[in-house]
Protein backbone atom coordinates (compact mmCIF):
# COMPACT_ATOMS: atom_id res chain seq x y z
CA UNK A 1 0.00 0.00 0.00
CA UNK A 2 1.69 3.20 -1.10
CA UNK A 3 1.39 6.56 0.60
CA UNK A 4 1.10 10.03 -0.93
CA UNK A 5 2.75 13.14 0.44
CA UNK A 6 0.37 16.11 0.36
CA UNK A 7 1.57 19.73 0.21
CA UNK A 8 1.07 20.39 3.91
CA UNK A 9 2.42 18.53 6.93
CA UNK A 10 0.54 15.41 8.05
CA UNK A 11 -1.92 16.35 10.77
CA UNK A 12 -3.12 14.44 13.79
CA UNK A 13 -5.38 12.78 14.62
CA UNK A 14 -5.73 10.71 11.42
CA UNK A 15 -9.32 9.86 12.33
CA UNK A 16 -11.64 12.78 13.08
CA UNK A 17 -15.00 12.00 14.57
CA UNK A 18 -18.05 13.36 16.32
CA UNK A 19 -20.67 11.25 18.09
CA UNK A 20 -24.43 11.57 18.42
CA UNK A 21 -26.81 9.48 20.48
CA UNK A 22 -29.72 10.32 18.21
CA UNK A 23 -30.44 10.38 14.48
CA UNK A 24 -33.48 10.85 12.27
CA UNK A 25 -34.42 9.09 9.05
CA UNK A 26 -36.14 10.56 6.01
CA UNK A 27 -37.11 9.22 2.59
CA UNK A 28 -37.10 11.92 -0.07
CA UNK A 29 -38.80 11.36 -3.43
CA UNK A 30 -37.62 13.72 -6.13
CA UNK A 31 -39.99 14.27 -9.03
CA UNK A 32 -39.29 14.96 -12.68
CA UNK A 33 -37.75 18.39 -13.14
CA UNK A 34 -36.19 18.57 -9.70
CA UNK A 35 -32.42 18.80 -9.48
CA UNK A 36 -31.02 15.69 -7.83
CA UNK A 37 -28.70 17.53 -5.43
CA UNK A 38 -29.95 21.11 -5.25
CA UNK A 39 -33.60 20.16 -4.69
CA UNK A 40 -32.60 17.55 -2.13
CA UNK A 41 -30.49 20.04 -0.19
CA UNK A 42 -33.30 22.61 -0.29
CA UNK A 43 -35.82 20.04 0.97
CA UNK A 44 -33.55 19.05 3.84
CA UNK A 45 -32.83 22.65 4.79
CA UNK A 46 -36.60 23.28 4.96
CA UNK A 47 -36.78 20.35 7.40
CA UNK A 48 -34.08 21.98 9.51
CA UNK A 49 -31.50 19.37 8.49
CA UNK A 50 -28.07 20.75 7.63
CA UNK A 51 -25.94 17.68 8.25
CA UNK A 52 -26.67 14.15 7.05
CA UNK A 53 -25.58 11.02 5.26
CA UNK A 54 -27.52 10.26 2.08
CA UNK A 55 -28.02 7.01 0.16
CA UNK A 56 -29.50 7.27 -3.30
CA UNK A 57 -31.84 4.38 -4.03
CA UNK A 58 -31.72 4.81 -7.78
CA UNK A 59 -33.78 6.78 -10.24
CA UNK A 60 -33.86 8.44 -13.63
CA UNK A 61 -32.12 11.59 -14.80
CA UNK A 62 -32.63 13.66 -17.94
CA UNK A 63 -29.02 14.84 -17.89
CA UNK A 64 -25.96 14.46 -15.72
CA UNK A 65 -22.93 16.59 -15.00
CA UNK A 66 -19.94 15.09 -13.22
CA UNK A 67 -16.22 15.39 -12.63
CA UNK A 68 -13.46 12.96 -11.70
CA UNK A 69 -10.13 13.30 -9.94
CA UNK A 70 -7.06 14.37 -11.92
CA UNK A 71 -3.54 15.59 -10.97
CA UNK A 72 -3.32 19.29 -10.10
CA UNK A 73 -0.94 20.83 -12.67
CA UNK A 74 -0.27 23.82 -10.40
CA UNK A 75 1.06 21.70 -7.55
CA UNK A 76 -1.00 23.61 -5.01
CA UNK A 77 -2.83 20.36 -4.30
CA UNK A 78 -1.98 16.79 -5.10
CA UNK A 79 -5.15 16.54 -7.20
CA UNK A 80 -8.04 18.56 -8.49
CA UNK A 81 -11.28 17.92 -10.32
CA UNK A 82 -11.39 17.33 -14.06
CA UNK A 83 -13.31 19.57 -16.41
CA UNK A 84 -17.02 18.72 -16.15
CA UNK A 85 -18.50 16.04 -18.37
CA UNK A 86 -22.14 16.56 -19.32
CA UNK A 87 -24.16 13.69 -20.75
CA UNK A 88 -27.70 13.89 -22.08
CA UNK A 89 -30.19 11.32 -20.87
CA UNK A 90 -31.87 9.14 -20.35
CA UNK A 91 -29.56 8.30 -17.48
CA UNK A 92 -30.26 5.54 -14.96
CA UNK A 93 -28.91 6.37 -11.52
CA UNK A 94 -27.81 3.07 -9.97
CA UNK A 95 -26.92 4.42 -6.56
CA UNK A 96 -24.57 6.63 -4.66
CA UNK A 97 -23.80 8.37 -1.42
CA UNK A 98 -23.65 11.97 -0.33
CA UNK A 99 -22.58 13.86 2.75
CA UNK A 100 -24.45 17.04 3.67
CA UNK A 101 -22.78 19.66 5.80
CA UNK A 102 -22.68 23.37 6.41
CA UNK A 103 -20.28 25.32 4.20
CA UNK A 104 -21.11 28.77 5.58
CA UNK A 105 -23.90 30.50 7.46
CA UNK A 106 -26.05 30.66 4.35
CA UNK A 107 -24.78 27.77 2.27
CA UNK A 108 -24.85 23.96 2.48
CA UNK A 109 -22.50 21.55 0.73
CA UNK A 110 -23.78 18.22 -0.59
CA UNK A 111 -20.77 16.12 -1.61
CA UNK A 112 -22.01 13.29 -3.82
CA UNK A 113 -20.36 10.40 -5.62
CA UNK A 114 -22.63 8.11 -7.63
CA UNK A 115 -22.78 5.38 -10.26
CA UNK A 116 -25.05 5.49 -13.28
CA UNK A 117 -25.71 4.06 -16.72
CA UNK A 118 -25.45 6.53 -19.57
CA UNK A 119 -27.76 6.66 -22.59
CA UNK A 120 -25.33 4.51 -24.60
CA UNK A 121 -25.56 1.75 -21.99
CA UNK A 122 -22.14 2.40 -20.48
CA UNK A 123 -21.76 2.26 -16.71
CA UNK A 124 -19.97 5.34 -15.34
CA UNK A 125 -19.37 6.94 -11.98
CA UNK A 126 -18.01 10.14 -10.54
CA UNK A 127 -18.55 13.25 -8.46
CA UNK A 128 -21.94 14.73 -9.38
CA UNK A 129 -22.37 18.48 -9.79
CA UNK A 130 -25.23 20.32 -8.04
CA UNK A 131 -27.58 22.04 -10.47
CA UNK A 132 -26.57 19.77 -13.37
CA UNK A 133 -28.57 16.60 -12.75
CA UNK A 134 -32.28 17.14 -13.56
CA UNK A 135 -34.48 14.26 -12.48
CA UNK A 136 -36.38 12.53 -15.26
CA UNK A 137 -39.69 10.71 -15.63
CA UNK A 138 -40.09 8.15 -12.86
CA UNK A 139 -38.21 10.27 -10.35
CA UNK A 140 -35.41 9.42 -7.98
CA UNK A 141 -35.27 8.51 -4.32
CA UNK A 142 -32.89 9.27 -1.48
CA UNK A 143 -32.79 7.88 2.05
CA UNK A 144 -31.36 10.37 4.49
CA UNK A 145 -29.88 9.91 7.93
CA UNK A 146 -29.80 13.24 9.75
CA UNK A 147 -26.84 12.92 12.07
CA UNK A 148 -28.11 14.84 15.10
CA UNK A 149 -25.43 16.47 17.21
CA UNK A 150 -22.63 14.79 15.21
CA UNK A 151 -22.32 17.23 12.36
CA UNK A 152 -20.27 17.94 9.27
CA UNK A 153 -19.00 21.41 8.45
CA UNK A 154 -16.53 22.65 5.86
CA UNK A 155 -13.11 23.66 7.17
CA UNK A 156 -9.88 24.36 5.33
CA UNK A 157 -7.48 21.43 5.60
CA UNK A 158 -3.86 22.68 5.55
CA UNK A 159 -2.53 19.17 4.86
CA UNK A 160 -4.30 18.79 1.51
CA UNK A 161 -5.09 22.48 0.83
CA UNK A 162 -8.75 21.60 0.29
CA UNK A 163 -11.78 23.00 2.13
CA UNK A 164 -13.30 19.72 3.29
CA UNK A 165 -16.31 18.45 5.19
CA UNK A 166 -15.10 17.53 8.65
CA UNK A 167 -16.88 16.22 11.76
CA UNK A 168 -17.82 18.72 14.42
CA UNK A 169 -19.88 18.33 17.57
CA UNK A 170 -22.89 20.63 17.84
CA UNK A 171 -22.44 23.40 20.36
Amino acid at each position, binding site marked *: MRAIRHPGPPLEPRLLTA*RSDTSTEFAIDLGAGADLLATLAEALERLGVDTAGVRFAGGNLDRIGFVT*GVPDPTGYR*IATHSAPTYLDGPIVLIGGSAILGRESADRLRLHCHAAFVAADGTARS*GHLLPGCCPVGTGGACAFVTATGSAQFAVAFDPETNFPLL*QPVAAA
Partner: protein
Amino acid sequence: MTAGVTAGRFGRLLTVRVRPNLDLTLGIEALCADHGVRHAEVRAAVGSLIDAVLVTPNGRRTIAGPGLEIALTAGRVAPDESGQPRAQLYGLVSDGEGRPYGGAFARGENPVFVTLELVLQEWLPDRQAT
Protein backbone atom coordinates in the same frame (compact mmCIF):
# COMPACT_ATOMS: atom_id res chain seq x y z
CA MET B 1 -31.29 -23.12 3.19
CA THR B 2 -30.63 -20.99 6.24
CA ALA B 3 -31.11 -17.37 7.15
CA GLY B 4 -29.81 -15.84 10.34
CA VAL B 5 -32.26 -13.24 11.55
CA THR B 6 -31.27 -10.72 14.18
CA ALA B 7 -33.71 -8.20 15.58
CA GLY B 8 -32.20 -4.97 16.75
CA ARG B 9 -32.02 -1.22 16.43
CA PHE B 10 -29.59 1.49 15.55
CA GLY B 11 -27.54 3.05 18.34
CA ARG B 12 -24.87 5.73 18.43
CA LEU B 13 -23.96 7.51 15.22
CA LEU B 14 -20.49 8.69 14.24
CA THR B 15 -19.60 11.32 11.66
CA VAL B 16 -16.06 10.66 10.52
CA ARG B 17 -13.27 11.98 8.38
CA VAL B 18 -10.42 9.64 7.54
CA ARG B 19 -7.23 11.54 6.66
CA PRO B 20 -4.91 10.54 3.78
CA ASN B 21 -2.91 7.30 3.64
CA LEU B 22 -5.00 5.43 6.21
CA ASP B 23 -6.67 2.26 4.94
CA LEU B 24 -10.44 2.47 4.54
CA THR B 25 -11.18 -0.80 6.36
CA LEU B 26 -8.55 -0.48 9.08
CA GLY B 27 -9.69 3.08 9.75
CA ILE B 28 -13.26 1.99 10.36
CA GLU B 29 -12.12 -0.86 12.58
CA ALA B 30 -9.91 1.45 14.65
CA LEU B 31 -12.75 3.90 15.01
CA CYS B 32 -15.12 1.20 16.25
CA ALA B 33 -12.52 -0.10 18.70
CA ASP B 34 -11.95 3.43 20.05
CA HIS B 35 -15.67 3.95 20.62
CA GLY B 36 -16.51 0.47 21.86
CA VAL B 37 -18.73 -0.22 18.84
CA ARG B 38 -19.08 -3.96 18.19
CA HIS B 39 -21.61 -3.95 15.34
CA ALA B 40 -22.15 -1.15 12.85
CA GLU B 41 -23.41 -0.30 9.39
CA VAL B 42 -21.97 2.17 6.89
CA ARG B 43 -24.83 4.62 6.29
CA ALA B 44 -22.98 6.85 3.79
CA ALA B 45 -19.41 7.22 2.54
CA VAL B 46 -17.87 9.67 0.05
CA GLY B 47 -14.18 10.03 -0.69
CA SER B 48 -11.21 8.95 -2.73
CA LEU B 49 -8.44 6.34 -2.68
CA ILE B 50 -4.81 6.43 -3.78
CA ASP B 51 -5.09 2.96 -5.35
CA ALA B 52 -7.70 0.27 -4.88
CA VAL B 53 -7.45 -3.47 -4.40
CA LEU B 54 -10.81 -5.16 -4.90
CA VAL B 55 -11.65 -8.81 -4.42
CA THR B 56 -13.78 -10.04 -7.34
CA PRO B 57 -15.01 -13.44 -8.56
CA ASN B 58 -11.94 -13.49 -10.82
CA GLY B 59 -9.52 -12.81 -7.99
CA ARG B 60 -7.89 -9.67 -6.67
CA ARG B 61 -7.96 -6.67 -8.96
CA THR B 62 -5.67 -3.68 -8.49
CA ILE B 63 -6.81 -0.34 -9.89
CA ALA B 64 -3.98 2.14 -10.03
CA GLY B 65 -4.60 5.74 -9.09
CA PRO B 66 -3.92 8.05 -7.58
CA GLY B 67 -7.29 9.70 -7.26
CA LEU B 68 -9.92 6.96 -7.50
CA GLU B 69 -13.33 8.19 -6.42
CA ILE B 70 -15.40 5.99 -4.16
CA ALA B 71 -18.78 5.91 -5.88
CA LEU B 72 -20.59 3.40 -3.70
CA THR B 73 -19.82 1.78 -0.39
CA ALA B 74 -21.84 -0.74 1.57
CA GLY B 75 -20.64 -2.63 4.53
CA ARG B 76 -20.85 -3.76 8.08
CA VAL B 77 -18.77 -4.16 11.19
CA ALA B 78 -19.05 -7.24 13.41
CA PRO B 79 -16.76 -8.75 16.02
CA ASP B 80 -14.26 -11.42 14.97
CA GLU B 81 -13.49 -14.54 16.98
CA SER B 82 -11.40 -12.53 19.43
CA GLY B 83 -14.11 -9.90 19.85
CA GLN B 84 -12.33 -7.20 17.86
CA PRO B 85 -14.40 -5.18 15.35
CA ARG B 86 -13.91 -6.38 11.77
CA ALA B 87 -15.25 -4.39 8.81
CA GLN B 88 -16.37 -5.97 5.54
CA LEU B 89 -16.78 -3.32 2.86
CA TYR B 90 -18.00 -3.55 -0.73
CA GLY B 91 -18.35 -0.93 -3.39
CA LEU B 92 -17.42 0.79 -6.61
CA VAL B 93 -14.51 3.07 -7.37
CA SER B 94 -14.05 5.10 -10.52
CA ASP B 95 -10.91 6.17 -12.33
CA GLY B 96 -10.10 9.52 -13.97
CA GLU B 97 -12.24 8.58 -16.99
CA GLY B 98 -15.27 7.75 -14.86
CA ARG B 99 -14.92 4.00 -15.44
CA PRO B 100 -16.33 2.03 -12.48
CA TYR B 101 -14.72 -1.02 -10.86
CA GLY B 102 -16.55 -3.06 -8.24
CA GLY B 103 -15.78 -5.64 -5.60
CA ALA B 104 -14.97 -6.18 -1.96
CA PHE B 105 -12.35 -3.82 -0.55
CA ALA B 106 -9.25 -5.84 0.42
CA ARG B 107 -8.41 -5.18 4.07
CA GLY B 108 -5.30 -3.03 4.50
CA GLU B 109 -4.86 -2.23 0.80
CA ASN B 110 -7.11 0.76 0.07
CA PRO B 111 -5.44 3.95 1.32
CA VAL B 112 -7.43 7.18 1.45
CA PHE B 113 -6.21 9.79 -1.02
CA VAL B 114 -7.58 13.23 0.02
CA THR B 115 -10.45 12.41 2.37
CA LEU B 116 -13.11 9.91 3.30
CA GLU B 117 -16.30 11.33 4.77
CA LEU B 118 -18.31 8.69 6.51
CA VAL B 119 -21.48 8.18 8.51
CA LEU B 120 -21.22 5.03 10.59
CA GLN B 121 -23.99 3.86 12.88
CA GLU B 122 -23.86 1.33 15.66
CA TRP B 123 -26.17 -1.66 15.32
CA LEU B 124 -27.48 -3.08 18.59
CA PRO B 125 -28.73 -6.64 18.17
CA ASP B 126 -31.51 -7.54 20.62
CA ARG B 127 -31.54 -11.30 20.19
CA GLN B 128 -30.91 -13.97 17.63
CA ALA B 129 -34.07 -15.35 16.04
CA THR B 130 -34.26 -18.39 13.76
